[in-house]
């Protein structure tokens, strides 16, 4: 039997071009299915990690998902701001342990800029690690003197090659080439350690800095004829008047619904409080149809790939009749002929799936920065999960089933042909 398998491999090698193309098709299909599963899983894990520690996200009334997306993941844009006094009122509520204000809307070379307070660095953290620790430098001062100081997420620093002491300028809006706040450069004073969350791709400055760079702006554009130099901003009142959203941590999680109701009924202005976990669940609920369709389409692509395998093996059988008859004359039984075909199909499937895993790994390396920037999804290089292994095994199982057809045909053929195939 071992001899037969060795011959099967040698025979397959002789037809390596056609089988190779089939193998690549299987690999691409497997990679697609794996990638869909990986993105689905990592997106969920990542989003859950990004919201950990935050009990409520508060912002102007609107879409809950939208609020979550811009407050936590810094994607999308806020349509409205909320007043600073609302923040102060909420931050001093007895149930609130901490509240971090966020002011969004500027960017640096495509990376979102968040105006906040130094408290941010204490509370904005993924579950797995304590507060985002600094790999270099310190938090921005948050004082009038240190107004133009910035703290970079690890990916920002790494991708743009920034170090402590470098000077950067911000742009208005999320477009990389929006109107520049070039007249008021910032100094990099801190760089955060990687967290695997959107924090990595964020530039952090103080709320005062956000006010300062917009002093001579109105309605999203520089005021013509008015130019306040950086050194003079201290003469102005830089206390924030508006923020985009705030993140809230509670003293006791059991207060969460009570505080949510309180905020939703807040009299000062129309606000909304969102439980990030619930909002995420709603998001997944909405997306599950899309997810399932993607999985179904990928599964179909795998089936098409394996149908191609069956077709290739069947088409090859006709030109291999002679080969099979020779093996029969040498003492190979029809069962061994069957085994040769099935082994061939199985080897192509297993190699295809293996190549698919490699392709997906390469794809992750290439695409991870893009998915993190645009979707806030941190794709990780890691060995296949149990779920992915189950998918791989089911592909291999289907490949085995797909090989049984040509195997069975070869069995019948070798019996009917005897030693001399009739053409």
């Amino acid at each position, binding site marked *: 039997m071992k001899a037969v398998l060795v011959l099967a491999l040698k025979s397959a090698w002789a037809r390596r071009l056609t089988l190779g193309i089939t193998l690549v098709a299987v690999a691409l299909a497997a990679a697609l299915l794996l990638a869909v599963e990986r993105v689905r899983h990592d997106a969920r894990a990542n989003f859950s990690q990004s919201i950990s520690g935050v009990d409520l996200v508060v912002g102007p009334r609107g879409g809950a998902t939208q609020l979550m997306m811009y407050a936590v993941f810094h994607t999308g844009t806020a349509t409205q701001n909320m007043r600073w006094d609302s923040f102060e009122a909420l931050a001093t509520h007895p149930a609130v342990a901490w509240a971090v204000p966020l002011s969004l809307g500027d960017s640096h070379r495509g990376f979102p800029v968040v105006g906040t307070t130094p408290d941010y660095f204490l509370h904005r953290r993924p579950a797995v690690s304590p507060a985002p620790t600094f790999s270099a430098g310190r938090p921005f001062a948050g004082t009038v003197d240190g107004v133009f100081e910035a703290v970079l997420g690890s990916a920002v620093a790494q991708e743009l090659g920034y170090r402590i002491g470098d000077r950067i300028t911000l742009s208005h809006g999320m477009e990389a080439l929006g109107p520049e706040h070039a007249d008021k450069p910032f100094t990099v004073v801190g760089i955060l350690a990687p967290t695997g969350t959107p924090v990595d791709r964020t530039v952090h400055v103080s709320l005062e800095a956000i006010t300062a760079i917009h002093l001579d702006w109105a309605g999203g554009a520089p005021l013509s004829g008015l130019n306040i130099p950086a050194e003079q901003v201290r003469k102005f009142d830089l206390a924030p008047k508006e923020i985009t959203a705030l993140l809230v941590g509670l003293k006791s999680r059991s207060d969460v619904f009570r505080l949510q109701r309180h905020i939703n009924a807040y009299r000062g202005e129309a606000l909304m409080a969102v439980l990030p976990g619930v909002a995420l669940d709603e998001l997944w609920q909405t997306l599950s149809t899309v997810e399932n369709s993607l999985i179904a389409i990928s599964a179909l692509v795998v089936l098409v790939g394996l149908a191609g395998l069956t077709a290739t093996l069947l088409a090859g059988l006709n030109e291999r009749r002679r080969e099979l008859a*020779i093996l029969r*004359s040498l*003492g*190979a039984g029809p069962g061994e002929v069957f085994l040769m075909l099935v082994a061939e199909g199985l080897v192509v499937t297993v190699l295809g799936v293996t190549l698919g895993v490699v392709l997906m790994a390469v794809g992750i390396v290439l695409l991870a920065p893009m998915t993190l920037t645009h979707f806030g999804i941190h794709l990780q290089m890691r060995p296949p999960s149990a779920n992915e292994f189950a998918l791989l095994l089911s592909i291999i199982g289907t490949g085995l089933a797909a090989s049984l057809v040509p195997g069975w045909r070869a069995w019948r053929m070798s019996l009917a042909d*005897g030693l001399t195939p009739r053409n």
Partner: protein
Amino acid sequence: MSALTLTDLIYRWPRQPAPCLDIPHFEIAAGERVFLRGPSGGGKSTLLAVLGGVALPNSGTVTLLGERLDTLSSRARDRFRADHIGFIFQQFNLLPWLSALDNVLLPCTFSARRAARAGDARATAEQLLTHLDLAPGLWHQPAAELSVGQQQRVAAARALIGKPEIVLADEPTSALDAPRQQRFIDLLLAETRAAGAALLFVSHDDRLAAHFDRRVTLAEINRASTETAA
């Protein structure tokens, strides 16, 4: 002991009323080299399939080396074929993607008995190829790159390696030109004698019959009409 005995053999193709083979008695002695002449499509290939244990007769007995082939299980018939019979066909005998030498060695991978009888299989294969006049430079070439004549000599070496008791040859010279036909037969007869094997050489061409121990026509042994296609 006879190498091969057929008694009251009837073989009918499925869905055909008339038998294609109806052989009351046919026998080949051990080491005997027999030329069997029959027209193309006269049931020769069917006879070889029955002798090789690939096709089963509808009735009658097929006895090879004292073993009733027709009563063995299909697995045992495959085993028997691997151990005791060498085949040479008209053409396309070889696995095109294996070298000439590896093709010769194939029976030793399928049959432990023939591997044992071949001794140092590689040396034996090289010796056979030398005797059959195949230049050493060709031994490691893929079979597909050899000429038809060279391929047939490799096929003969493969049929003979490990000293099977019976060699069945089905028009092995039909793809060769006339001068090479006789040369091939001489080499085959010599090597068959050296191996001590019985040889059944089937052909439609009477001119090749000269050097065999015995000449038979299919019509002499087969009572069935030869109109049915083989």
